[in-house]
């Protein structure tokens, strides 16, 4: 081997090491996200806050992961009852999702050579919708109903735009695809309404005295519930009389309980190795591609109820299956993700074959080595983008009730399939003659 060949080998090795290093951070982030999720589901919000600070200090959430950092912070501060901080982070996440519409060319090239973890995380469309739900709840806690209504309106608008947005994503990829060989198709979104958004809007409009708007929102709520029932094989979500929501005098407390966890992404790999067994290395072709698959978490909670002053028991209605809606929305985006992964992997495989083939003609050993390094590079750089909002709950349960003046105890109980209480949260709710709407909020993320 002459010195030029050694130089070539050195450069190749350098790139391989670079590839290794670029992939490392995404694994560290994945681990950090799991730690955060574990502390959150254990309801240890103080530790979750500490973890966030630690991760920030260690630069685990890099500039490309800021949407994720803000979403997790927003949710942790929400359930730590720090509503102003929560809204601050959730607003940041929303603004960044909006700004990330404009994609970085250099990051795009980097991602094409390695994997999608190089890209700026611009949030899943369902994350963009649900962040507004928690901002709305923040504003209800702060008794700012007008601001809460701004959030529910944004939620409704985003849900209506979802299909358009996902079709738009396909159209954007089609425009940037210079090969013109890929048909950038999407799946259909079979859901255009958020029941939780309409439920909150009905309550807020009714309490603000806009009875007509409350009626319209209640009608949309019923449509949304039918859409969701189709997603969950006709499971009866709501047993209460929803028309009661329109009557602001029939309730002064909104009970809400969140259960389960957000869907999570797992990596699935596909490998193709072709060899015609004639000992010719030129005919070997290896392709690996990795893509994320969204899995829903099976909550151990079967239903949620509230026990008022240790005497009256009332069930909460399953208003939104956030996990099922998220999976449905993600399903529409999935064909795009698969197409991207396949094109990227094919480019890497063909590149390896062409370069190693050309070098092999001059030096067989170096050609074989390059081919091996190419296989290793494909194996190490192909990694599915598993980033997603870890602390988002899976289901939202709600109910409006009227409590009498004075101090009331409200216990939100989470029951498993065997009918046993798996967890409960107790609250003291003070009702005065001036109380219009108190929000009692609880979570059992299991």
């Amino acid at each position, binding site marked *: 081997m002459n010195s030029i060949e050694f130089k070539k080998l050195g450069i190749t090795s350098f790139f391989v090491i670079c590839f290794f290093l670029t992939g490392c951070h995404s694994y560290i982030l994945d681990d950090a996200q799991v730690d955060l999720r574990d502390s959150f589901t254990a309801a240890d919000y103080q530790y979750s806050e500490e973890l966030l600070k630690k991760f920030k200090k260690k630069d685990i959430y890099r500039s490309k992961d800021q949407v994720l950092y803000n979403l997790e912070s927003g949710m942790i501060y929400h359930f730590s009852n720090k509503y102003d901080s929560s809204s601050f982070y959730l607003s940041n996440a929303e603004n960044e999702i909006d700004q990330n519409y404009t994609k970085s060319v250099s990051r795009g090239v980097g991602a094409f050579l390695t994997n999608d973890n190089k890209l700026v995380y611009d949030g899943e469309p369902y994350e963009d919708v649900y962040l507004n739900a928690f901002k709305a709840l923040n504003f209800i806690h702060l008794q700012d109903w007008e601001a809460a209504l701004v959030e529910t309106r944004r939620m409704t608008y985003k849900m209506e735009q979802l299909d358009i947005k996902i*079709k738009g994503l396909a159209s954007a990829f089609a425009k940037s695809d210079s090969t013109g060989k890929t048909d950038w198709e999407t799946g259909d979104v079979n859901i255009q309404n958020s029941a939780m958004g309409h439920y909150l809007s009905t309550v807020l409009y009714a309490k603000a005295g806009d009875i007509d708007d409350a009626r319209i929102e209640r009608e949309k709520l019923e449509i949304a519930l039918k859409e969701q029932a189709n997603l969950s094989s006709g499971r009866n979500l709501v047993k209460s009389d929803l028309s009661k929501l329109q009557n602001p005098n029939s309730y002064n407390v909104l009970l809400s309980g969140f259960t389960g966890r957000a869907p999570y992404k797992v990596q699935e790999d596909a490998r193709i190795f072709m060899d015609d067994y004639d000992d010719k290395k030129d005919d070997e072709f290896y392709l690996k591609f990795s893509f994320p698959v969204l899995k829903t978490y099976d909550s151990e909670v079967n239903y949620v109820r509230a026990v008022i002053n240790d005497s009256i028991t009332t069930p909460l209605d399953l208003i939104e299956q956030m996990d099922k809606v998220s999976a449905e929305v993600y399903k529409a985006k999935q064909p795009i993700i698969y197409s991207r992964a396949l094109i990227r992997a094919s480019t890497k495989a063909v590149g390896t074959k062409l370069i190693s083939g050309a070098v092999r003609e001059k030096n067989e050993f170096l050609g074989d080595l390059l081919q091996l390094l190419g296989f290793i590079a494909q194996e190490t750089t192909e990694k599915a983008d598993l980033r997603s909002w870890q602390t988002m709950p899976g289901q939202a349960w709600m109910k409006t009730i009227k409590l009498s003046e004075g101090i009331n105890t409200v216990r939100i109980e989470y029951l498993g399939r065997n009918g046993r209480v798996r967890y409960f949260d107790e609250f003291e709710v003070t009702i005065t003659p001036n109380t219009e709407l108190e929000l009692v909020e609880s979570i059992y993320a299991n």
Partner: protein
Amino acid sequence: MKYSLLTGLLLAFVLVGCRPSQKITRINPNTTTDLSGKWNDTDARLVAEEMIADALSKPWLNQFNRNNQKPPVVIVGRVRNESMEHIETEVFTKELERSFVNSGEISVVASSEERADIRDERLDQQANASYETTKKLGQELGADFMLIGNINSIVDEAVDSRTLAVFYTVNLEFVNIQTNQKVWIGNKKIKKFIERRNYRGMP
């Protein structure tokens, strides 16, 4: 030659590195700065300018002056935000109040939130201020009209989300507190067209 080129490059890096991470410049408050496409100070200013000119030039004001021989007293009520953005309506309602007071043609009394503190102070004076300087109870100036209104917005977004048009409409009304009669309705429409780039060079 090689060394001077390297030194030059190094110096350029150092200079770029030494540049402050942010630069602050004071600009004229009337300058239009559309950074995000959202409702901003320019929109609030446009609304205030139009509403002030309209409210002071319409016949209701002269009619009231002629019939009552005094300027009308107004109170700022609620301007409801029915849009999809968090809009601080006080930015332009304060501008309206300022112009009304300074014109001398319309008197303005403190709003319900503002007068709570003033009433507390007046009550406090009854116990703690000297007899000569204590302000009397029950001497507040009752408003003739209440300013109410709303802001609405319509967003129209292209399929690829690259372009969107936002239409805001701001309605303000003076309602006679005695009779519920609406004596003036002002309206300002603002339409924005926002274009977003698909790609940028920076990471």
